[in-house]
């Protein structure tokens, strides 16, 4: 009888209420975090982070203030061409890579 009375007393104490509320809040935070890590939103964040890490231009400083001359524009035009020439379209997206022969389906 005395023990039951003590338990009831404990249940009605503010410490018990705060502890319970904290536990529920922790459970909800944990669950929400787990749902976020499983969601596509998190996958998108990871993808953006990977992209930013890969592209040095995004992190580097780009000159947007100094005066520009005709030779600078020539340099940019040449640089664009060189950068694009480094990309081999036929190698990267070779149509033959999906042929029956390449896939061993013949």
């Amino acid at each position, binding site marked *: 009888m005395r023990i039951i009375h003590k338990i009831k007393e404990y249940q009605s104490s503010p410490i018990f209420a705060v502890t319970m509320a904290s536990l529920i809040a922790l*459970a909800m935070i944990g669950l929400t975090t787990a749902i976020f890590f499983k969601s*596509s939103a998190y996958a998108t964040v990871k993808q953006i982070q990977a992209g930013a890490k890969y592209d040095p231009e995004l992190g580097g400083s780009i000159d947007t203030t100094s005066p520009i001359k*005709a030779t600078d524009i020539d340099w940019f035009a040449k640089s664009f061409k060189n950068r694009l020439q480094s990309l081999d379209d036929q190698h990267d997206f070779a*149509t033959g890579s999906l042929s029956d022969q390449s896939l061993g389906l013949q």
Partner: protein
Amino acid sequence: MFLKILSLVILLELLLWPANILAENATNNASDPTSRLQLALDNSKITLDDTTKANIVSKCQGAQIVLRNVQLETDKATRRRTGVYNSIIIDLQAIKLRMNRQGSDASETDLLTGKLQEIVDQFTIAVDSYGTTLSDLIAIDCTAQPEQFEAGLILARGQNLAVLGLATKFKQTTNNNLIFEQLKRRLTL
């Protein structure tokens, strides 16, 4: 006391259950590889004779290994390409800002940036669809669904061509020297 906590946990779980299901559905993108490839099969309307079907069933698992390599190479190439495309667009913006600062009209860069950005957007969508189809082809049980596998292959070949076309289009658009000549003329005005 124990019962109270237990009922509270059960109540909480019941409340959060629908949220969990919603999150999972969002991750699954409302469609799965089998239904996407079934859709490809319905659209292509292909029918396979028994010999072709047997050939696919016996060799498709080897093809899936090759497709996995194709997917990895495509991912690598896409990341590199996106970086180069973005760096060109950023440099074009920088040219515009520098020209504007010295009072020169650089509206030609707006036109070129707009065109390039449009191609990059189309490229991103096309390469995403292509990647999804490759993933589906790798994930599907091709020995049980040879028609879907074949339809997926036809779809992937078309998507690969579209990606290649957009990559070529970006190159051709950037190699337009007229715009750069025009910009140089603006500087001397």
